[in-house]
């Protein structure tokens, strides 16, 4: 199994993602922002960082990178695309996922441990997680407050596309008062086909007990399992019209 890890100028969690993949004993290759060749990878990770400095607006420039054209095609063909932090922001700007990530409700950057409930385990990103399991994964962002219009939020909920939701450490709801104030406490959502995930927390920082948690590894393991068993979806995920 081979992960491709996008590298835009300003990306910094590419090395951490490669480390997480290596902890599992798998291979990763960097995908340079100017290249269009995805090198036959099984899953593309859009990692954290400040692509192109995030000047103008987070992810706003990165979506126009040549690499993103290939990522769009890859996603349309059902390939696994995993946006983490800045990667989530880029996916929203690229309209591969709905909604937007705005400034944290605190108006401050936040780097801290967060907890999130796995809302479904039939996704290629969470199939190695338990139902309702609470994952401890840190965040590190200034603009991670997920917002969308009411119709989009309803559609996301109705189609069970909220994959990760911030909760307290004991699993109890936080009722809108999450680390960044996201609507519906959304930490991560998937595309209509379920093959594109965007999440603000950094699973690649939760891959060793030494660093405080290895819950993130479950997500990497899930992707490996999904690819290696050649069945991305544990059940027939609803396949509807592409998002926008």
């Amino acid at each position, binding site marked *: 199994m081979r992960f491709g890890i996008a590298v835009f*100028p*300003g990306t*910094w*969690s590419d*090395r*951490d993602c490669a*480390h*997480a993949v290596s902890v599992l004993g798998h291979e990763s290759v960097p995908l340079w922002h100017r290249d269009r060749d995805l090198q036959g990878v099984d899953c593309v990770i859009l990692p*954290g*960082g*400040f692509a*192109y*400095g*995030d*000047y103008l607006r987070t992810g706003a420039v990165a979506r126009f990178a040549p690499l993103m054209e290939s990522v769009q095609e890859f996603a349309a063909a059902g390939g696994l695309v995993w946006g983490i932090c800045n990667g989530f922001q880029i996916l929203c700007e690229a309209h591969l996922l709905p909604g937007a990530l705005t400034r944290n409700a605190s108006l*401050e*950057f*936040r*780097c*801290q441990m967060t907890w999130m409930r796995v809302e479904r385990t039939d996704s290629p990103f969470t199939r190695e997680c338990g139902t309702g399991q609470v994952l401890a994964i*840190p965040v*590190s962002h*200034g603009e991670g407050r997920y917002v969308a219009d009411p119709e989009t939020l309803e559609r996301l909920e109705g189609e069970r596309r909220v994959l990760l939701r911030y909760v307290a450490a004991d699993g109890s709801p936080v009722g809108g008062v999450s680390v960044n104030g996201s609507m519906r406490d959304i930490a991560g959502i998937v595309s209509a086909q379920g093959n594109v995930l965007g999440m603000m927390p*950094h699973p*690649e*920082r939760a*891959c*060793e007990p*030494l*660093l*405080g948690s290895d819950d993130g590894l479950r997500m990497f393991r899930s992707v490996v399992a999904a690819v290696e068993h050649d069945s991305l979806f544990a059940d027939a995920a609803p396949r509807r019209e592409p998002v926008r």
Partner: protein
Amino acid sequence: MSDAPAVSAAQLAEVALTREEYELATSRLGRHPSAVELGIIGALWSEHCGYKTSKPLLRRLPVTGPRVLQGPGENAGAVDIGGGLACVFKVESHNHPSAIEPYQGAATGVGGILRDVFTMGARPVALLDSLRFGPFEESAQRHLLDGVVAGIGGYGNCIGVPTVGGEVYFDESYRFNCLVNAMCVGIIEQGRLTHATAAGPGNVVLLVGADTGRDGIHGATFASVELNESSAERRPAVQVGNPFLEKCLMEVCVALAGDPRIVAMQDLGAAGLTSATAELAHRGGCGIAIDIAHVSRRETGMTPYEVMLSESQERMLLVVRPEDVASVQAEFDRWDLQSDGIGRITDSGRFVVSDGPTVVCDLPLAMLIDEVPLRHPDQRRPAGLDRALAADPLTMAPPWSPGETLRRLLASPNIGSRRPIFRRYDHQVGDDTVILPGGDAALLRVRGTGGAIALCTDGNARYGELDPRRGAAIAVCEAARNVVAVGAAAIALTNCLNFGNPEKPEIFWQLGEAIEGMREACLALGIPVVSGNVSLYNDTAGVSIAPTTVIGMVGLLEDLERRCGAGFTGNGDVVLLVGPVGMDLGGSEYQRLAHGVNAGPRPTLDLDLEARVQAVVLEAIGSGWLRSCHDLAEGGLGVALAESCILGGRGVHVTAPFFSLGSPIVQSGLLFGESQSRFLVSAAPADVAALRAVAQSRDVEVRELGVTGGGRVVVDGVLALELKALQEAYDGALLAPATGT
């Protein structure tokens, strides 16, 4: 070049030179320097670049040791951390800019120290920041704090280097001169260490990275004069940072480290192109000739003077053989970075700058760097020190009960939780931060070695205010204790000396004393000084800051499994004090809170005892006997007990009888005195005997205090408090008050 006319006092003030220094330059040259040359001489002869006041004193510091790969003199120091790796690090101040424009001042301070480390080829793996402000209760000070923290985060978070530690203190003396000292630590294979030493006449000098603008002109000289009411007008002397550009620059430079095509690498910092080119050439015993017509500009109409003294950020110089220029430039092109061939290395020993066909500067390098006219100001021990030192803190009755005192200490902005600050910094990127901010020292895994480095900064200026020598020695010991507390041996340090105007005899006396104190402590603990920075002229309207010696310490832990945290980890563990019992209240945070004074003898410091205590604790952690270990610092034993409880989420019951025996002031002295050379540790009952035996063999006192567990902090006969209430006080210390001043 024709002789320029003699200069006015205003022109000399602009470049921070005295009339005598100007005459010296003129006689050395046999002519008057041109305007461009005057600016260049002023910059390189400034305190900031030339250390003209501090150099003779700094020579007294120990700079060698078996692990030292690079001592002072390069962009940063480097030490051997095993596995063929070098740890490269330095601390530097950005005080004046931050006082004027806190966000950009702090941000570019971080950017500058990062370049110092990656210019040596090392990948930066950690940042730390040592901050000082006026009273937290004042909204203007919180505004500065907020801007500085946002600037540090804005730069560090964007570039993807974790900010893992540091400290912050609030004191009257910093009201008009906040301090922002940034430390960067990098790691590199020893064989790839890159130096800023030019070689090979004919080799090409490349200027890479950002375009050159008018920002930061005179930054170096600005940092070498006092601030005053019109300092806000110097805002153009503050640079503006672009962390994204620096991230790209860093990736290329780190990738090029050890590449045979790179002869030398030097970053542009204070005095911009002037000091970078001059130092690069001079270190290699070469000359240099550059043509500034080839420097990419971000503004039109810049004069040669402005180009040479611009402190535009995110720029580097490389020396490359002519045949390699194209291929090296291609590496920068890949990251969309500008690279300009601006000149050549020569064998003339001269510093020649032309603007197209016109030569605008032709000076001997030796004069610019070796012949910096040293200043030897008068020194005088300040009057009134003896009286202040003779005060007896034990005669001042405590205003509060011991329990209330502890609560107030934990709520003090100088002691309480730093989380409201460090949660605004990315402290985990890199996947190596094992001990996060909030402990005694940060611990970073070093891949491929099984070990880790421990990092901290420290520097209590309240001790130094009345006794700079003792204060600086304590700063070294305290920083060493911090890394020892996590299980690492202190192997080398960097320092930043923040002082007032050295032309005042009292200030120059403080500087000499502090360097002597640092020297004594370094020799006693066997810790070399491998890099450092001096920030003088921290004065406003004639008021100087308290002498502030900031120490950045690097410790080495060879086996990551043998580490220790500061929080209690289990119930029923025995709590012990390693080191002496003491009641040193002079200069303590207790004294500041309870009486609003700084008086009385400084904490006693026995350097030999300090070394023995540290050795005992290191051996105990290395042997796996300790379940927690916390250094005693501000707030003394009482605060250390509460912090170990808060960090461990469990209480403590102190049953040792001696606390309850004395009068209220003795109880306060025992609990809140800041006596040195002490650790609070906990151990499983079965391991206590082994700890005692090792301590005894080294003639170190160990006392059983009590036992961990429960939800309260109890000292029999003295205080009993709910842990939750203490936690609340601690957590709220740095949250802005609802109503400010």
